[in-house]
């Protein structure tokens, strides 16, 4: 049985959460904030190891003007094969208002052998919105060949495109995904996006963060860290260090 579920979060200034709706495998819990970076924190608690083939999941977060929200997760998301050959779809839709801030720091997305997942993250930022967004794709569980994974990350700021990236890996992807132009044998891929209107005055310089990771300024007040690693642990280490550097 495939399922359709949409979970929703709305954050308002001062830490209130006017909307906090769990649905199906996407269970949302309000958790205690651990630092000064957010007024409210929501943790996605994966009740099942969804998504399975055929599932259609969606997670929406609306951070209203002036609100500050942190969203994280209790565990990695594992894409698994379903009973139907259809791919699973997982849509994340984020909206961040004026002077609002969203820290979107979920756990890894693991593409298990035989699975097929299309993940789409769309972000609409107001001109003065701030964003920290992390995505990590792990291709296959330990020692396993990956499933087929497509992830698209589209970010608009003040209505204009800021970042649009699609990554496709695995046996169902076009050939060449594992070659020297795309992954070069790495099995963990991560992005860390930081959007901060203050960067308009002081654009970042590109920075090398090791052999297979780099920080680059986007064509806008934002930087993107792109990192490849052999596994999830090494990837997280690079991204954590970059996150500390950028926000610490």
């Amino acid at each position, binding site marked *: 049985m495939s399922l359709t579920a949409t979970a929703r979060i709305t954050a308002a200034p001062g830490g209130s959460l006017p909307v906090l709706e769990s649905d199906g495998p996407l269970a949302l819990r309000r958790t205690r904030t651990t630092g000064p970076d957010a007024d409210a924190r929501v943790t996605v608690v994966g009740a099942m190891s969804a998504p399975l083939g055929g599932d259609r999941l969606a997670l929406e977060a609306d951070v209203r003007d002036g609100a500050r929200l942190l969203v994280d997760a209790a565990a990695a998301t594992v894409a698994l094969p379903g009973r139907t050959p259809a791919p699973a779809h997982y849509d994340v839709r984020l909206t961040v208002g004026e002077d609002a801030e969203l820290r979107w720091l979920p756990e890894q997305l693991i593409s298990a052998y035989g699975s097929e997942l299309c993940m789409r993250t769309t972000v609409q930022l107001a001109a003065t919105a701030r964003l920290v967004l992390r995505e990590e794709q792990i291709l296959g569980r330990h020692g396993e060949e990956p499933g087929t994974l497509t992830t698209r990350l589209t970010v608009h700021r003040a209505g204009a495109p800021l970042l649009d990236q*699609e990554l496709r890996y695995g046996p169902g992807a076009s050939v060449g995904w594992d070659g020297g132009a795309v992954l*070069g044998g790495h099995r963990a891929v991560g992005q860390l996006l930081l959007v901060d209107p203050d960067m308009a005055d002081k654009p970042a310089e590109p920075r090398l963060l090791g052999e297979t990771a780099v920080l680059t300024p986007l064509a806008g007040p934002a930087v993107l860290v792109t990192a490849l690693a052999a596994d999830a642990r090494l990837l997280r280490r690079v991204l954590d260090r970059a996150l500390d550097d950028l926000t610490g």
Partner: protein
Amino acid sequence: MRRSALLVLADGRFPAGGHAHSGGAEAAVKAGRITDAAGLAAFCRGRLHTTGLTSAALAAAAALGHDPYELDRAADARTPSLALRSAARKLGRQMTRAARATWPCAELDALAAAFPRGTHQPVVLGLAARAAGLGPEDAAHCVVYETVSGPASAAVRLLSLDPFQATAVLARLAPEMDQVAERAAAAARQGIDHLPAASAPLLDIAAEQHAAWPVRLFAS
């Protein structure tokens, strides 16, 4: 039938600066990711299906007459690497010069006036194709071909790779090039919001590393 104009535009000797760029091959060679014809084929294939598709669709959209400003922003959003954005604009400016001299027209003049520092090369190429009487499929074909021919000719210089082998790599990729070009043109016909954004993490990472080298043979 517009084949001859397409050959003029697609010719590796078209004087628009491409010869000084390796399409990421120089960095990949140094990192040991291309050591022979098989590695070159895997590299070219990955580039073709990622940035090749994305660039080809931008070119096809420009050839269809979509707004160059919007295409320029779409290209920026699809090019997170500053080094690659700079290279694309530099090559775009050189392509603008070459195209204006080759197929003079008001549209290319307007483009040059609108982007004095250059817009992304695929956008210029699409408008050059338009000026040459070519269509979006032609522009897309041109881009996918240079997506793989650039690294192949650079690999011949960098690795002293047998040029026959390098050309055979391109020949074997031809059916895939046709598919990618058709996909790109089809996406462009649906409008700017439907343009693909396929990307390649290693190309982005290696481009920044390459730009930081004090000594290199190719500009990108």
